[in-house]
Each structure stands twice: as structure tokens, then as C-alpha cells.
């Protein structure tokens, strides 16, 4: 291999052209610094869309497009043995959660079309094939816990009620009965095999604070999307309102 001749990288130039080179370099450097400062100020002065600077919101949306390509209908996250699941499951958000709810009166309301609502009881949901999901639950704050859930896969549920037609829509929307908490989820993630309408945690009915009687478990997304206590489910080609996205978070919020 040829030895690098670093010290041969010399040129002899006149004093004038030396000075010229140095001055030009410093002027360009100053221009770069000024340009950087201006670019930063420009970015921070942009209007906000759902509390996030518009160019950054657009980038989050572009990131979704770039990364979502890697998801296909069979994508699954790693599953764990029951023994790995924690007993003390963290409760982090109580928005939309009520103190009590009468499960015999509660119905999952699926809006098939305007004025056409399907109502399904908890017992009916429990009749459907049950799937257990033990996965590493991740909160957008940064913590994670291996937790154990069970319920019916969304896809199985939709097929049982002959709702396959909605799978052509872009988004699913979920709301708590009191409409205080609401999420929008892209259909691709919503139909993944581990996405379940969940009614059990650690082999027992969901605790009140974990979203009794029915919550969403969607392992490819941050906890903010795992809506507790589902009241209404609907489908749309435009983005349904999303509680945390409106407070500045990424709408997609998926892994």
C-alpha cells in the first residue's frame, strides 16, 4: 500500500493570496454560522400544527411513511413467557377513566355508518376466540414493562361481525364512553395479529384503572394509543381526533 505523504500536501503561495484565502474562509465560515442561526430562528418561528412546529409535524408524518413500509400484516413483537410478566402493572394515565362502570349495561358501540351502530356486550366479546399477548409494554415517557393481557384480536372481531369492509378505511377511531379520551390508529397497525380488544390482565378481569371492561392493546404502539375503557369504535379515511397528538405528540406513535 502506498504510504500517505501527508507533509507533502504543501503549496508555496504569495502573501497576498495567503491573506485572501484566509479572509475568504473566515467570511464563508461567518456566513455558515449566520445561515445556521437564521435557519434555527426560521424553524422556531413557524406556525404550529397541534402544538408542534409545522415542519417538524410534517417530518413526523414523513417518518411514518418511511418506516411504516417495513410493517406488513404479519408483523409481531417479541412475546414472553407468563413468568416474565410483572405483577404490579403501572397505571399511568386516568384521562377518561370513570370510578365505576356497570358492565351489564356497557356495550361496545361500533359505528358502521352514520346512524348504523352495532352494540356488542362484554359477554359476546368473551365468546370469541381468546388470544393472550405477553409483551414489552412501552410508555412514551421512556419506561417499559413486560405485561400479560388477553382478549380477542381486532381482526377476528371484525370478521365475526362481518365488518371486513372497514378494513379498506385508513383509520380506526376509539373513544371512552365519556368521550374524554380518544385515539386514532392507522388501519395497518389496527389489524396486526397482536392487536387485541382486551378484557383480562394477568388472567383476571381488567382492573378499573386498567380500562375495565374493555381496552385496546396494540403492541406496535406507545401506551398512549392503548385506549382504556372503549366506548365507541369508528372508521374513517381522515385522521380521527387523537388526545395526545393534539397535545404535540406524534400521531403515529408506533414502533
Amino acid at each position: 500500500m502506498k504510504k500517505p505523504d501527508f507533509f507533502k500536501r504543501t503549496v508555496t503561495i504569495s502573501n497576498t493570496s495567503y491573506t485572501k484565502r484566509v479572509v475568504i474562509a473566515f467570511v464563508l465560515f461567518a456566513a455558515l454560522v449566520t445561515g445556521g442561526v437564521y435557519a434555527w430562528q426560521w424553524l422556531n418561528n413557524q406556525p404550529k400544527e397541534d402544538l408542534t412546529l409545522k415542519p417538524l409535524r410534517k417530518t413526523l408524518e414523513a417518518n411514518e411513511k418511511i418506516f411504516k413500509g417495513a410493517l406488513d400484516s404479519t408483523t409481531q413483537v417479541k412475546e414472553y413467557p407468563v413468568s416474565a410478566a410483572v405483577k404490579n402493572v403501572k397505571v399511568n394515565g386516568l384521562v377518561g377513566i370513570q370510578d365505576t362502570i356497570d358492565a351489564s349495561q356497557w356495550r361496545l358501540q361500533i359505528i358502521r355508518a352514520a346512524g348504523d351502530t352495532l352494540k356488542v356486550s362484554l359477554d359476546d366479546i368473551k365468546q370469541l376466540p381468546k388470544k393472550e399477548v405477553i409483551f414489552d409494554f412501552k410508555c412514551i415517557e421512556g419506561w417499559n414493562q413486560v405485561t400479560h393481557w388477553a382478549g380477542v384480536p381486532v381482526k377476528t372481531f371484525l370478521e365475526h361481525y362481518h365488518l371486513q369492509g372497514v378494513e379498506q378505511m385508513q383509520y380506526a377511531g376509539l373513544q371512552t364512553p365519556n368521550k374524554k379520551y380518544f385515539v386514532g390508529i392507522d388501519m395497518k397497525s389496527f389489524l396486526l395479529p397482536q392487536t387485541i380488544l382486551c378484557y383480562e390482565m394477568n388472567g383476571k378481569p381488567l382492573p378499573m384503572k386498567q380500562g375495565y371492561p374493555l381496552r385496546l392493546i396494540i403492541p406496535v404502539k406507545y401506551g398512549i394509543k392503548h385506549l382504556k375503557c372503549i366506548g365507541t369504535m369508528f372508521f374513517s379515511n381522515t385522521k380521527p381526533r387523537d388526545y395526545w397528538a393534539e397535545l404535540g405528540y406524534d400521531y403515529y406513535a408506533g414502533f
Partner: protein
Amino acid sequence: MKTVLKKHPLAIRWFHWVNFPILAIMIWSGILIYWAYAKYAISFGNLEIYHFFPRSFYTALNIPHRLAEGMSFHFAFMWLFFGNGLLYVLYTVFSGEWRYLLPNRHSFKEAWQVLLHDLHIRKYAPPQLKYNAAQRIAYTAIIVMGLGSIITGLAIYKSAEFAWCTWLCGGYASARLIHFVLTIGYCLFFVVHIVQVVLTGWNNFQAMITGIEIVKTAKLPLQKETMLEPLPETTQPTTHEKA
């Protein structure tokens, strides 16, 4: 007339100075994110020596309650950080500059001699080309760290699609810790880098802007003997050790 050494190619200067604000923004937005679950500390047993970070630190930098904002910056500027880093690596590979940057088989031994010299314990530094052995190790390590930040970052950001990254990092929590430790590494690198640049002086510093450094003519013959001509393969690396 002046004899000048063309020390830093324009591309390297560009990548260096563009990286500086981008990395700063990545670290700042990273702290905004970290704040939401700020559990790391240096401890011995139950004794907590230092918690990352003290309340005063957060207050001084206006960190609290800005998780969403931090994420929006982090996941935009990550592209610039990655792109600039990738272009730098490609440039050094194709231009041949990597020859001055990669440590060689003597670098790890020589790095000690450089350190002892810098600490005024050893009189002579080992002979060097563009960078000394310690610099070669540092400037290569920082690139490996950059790659580490990308892998651990993907392991956290896309733990389903890049499950192999998460696995490689030893799990999600471990990936987050490594991501954090690497960031602390950048901060330590920055401190040492600044100290070294200040100690080395203006002529060295301005070369990172102008690219050129005046070669003192009086020194030139001496350099010619000891450094300019490549020494025979067998004696080059050990000249000073034997002396």
C-alpha cells in the same frame, strides 16, 4: 511567500462544523425526552453519587414538561445527524483521508506515549502524520459511537421494525441506557476536545476554518529529515521508543 500545509479538506471542515450544531440539538432534544423518565444515576450499592440530572440543571436549561417538543426535534434532526455522519464516513473512505484517521497496529501503544507527553511526563511525542495516535483513536471512536447512537436509537424508536437492533442492544431498557451513555460520551469528548484545541493554539484552530496552516520554513528541513520522507517500514514506528 508562504509555504502552507493543506491540512483539512473543505469537505471535512464542512462535516465538522455542520455536525456541531446538529449534535447539540440532538443532545438538547434528547434531554427533553430523557426528563420524562429520568432514572439514571451513578451509585455504589444504595449510595447515589450523582443523579442524571439535578433539578437545578433542568431549571437552568428550561427542560421540564417538553417531552413532545423534544421528540419532534429529535426525530427530525436525526436525519441530518445521520446524513452528515454518513457523508463524512463516505468522504474519508473515498478520499483516502481514512489513512490519517484510523488507528493502526501501533496506535494503542503510542496513544499512551502521547498521553504521557501531553501530561508533561514524557519529553517527546511519538512521530505522527496528520493526527497522533490518541487523536486517531478518539476520532475513530467518535464515529463508532455515532453508529452506536443510530443503532440504539433505532432499537428504541422502532423496536418492532428494527427488533434485531433491540435484540443486539440487550433489550429495550438496555438500548435506552446505552443511548444515554453514548450521549454522555459525546459531552466528555467535547470537553477534552475543547481543552486540547485551546492548548494547541490558534494556528491549529484556524486550520479547521481555513483548511491551511503555515509551515514555518525554519522547521522545514528538520521535518524533512524526521517526518517528511516516509521512513523505512521496519524503523518508522519505533524510532522514538528506542531513543
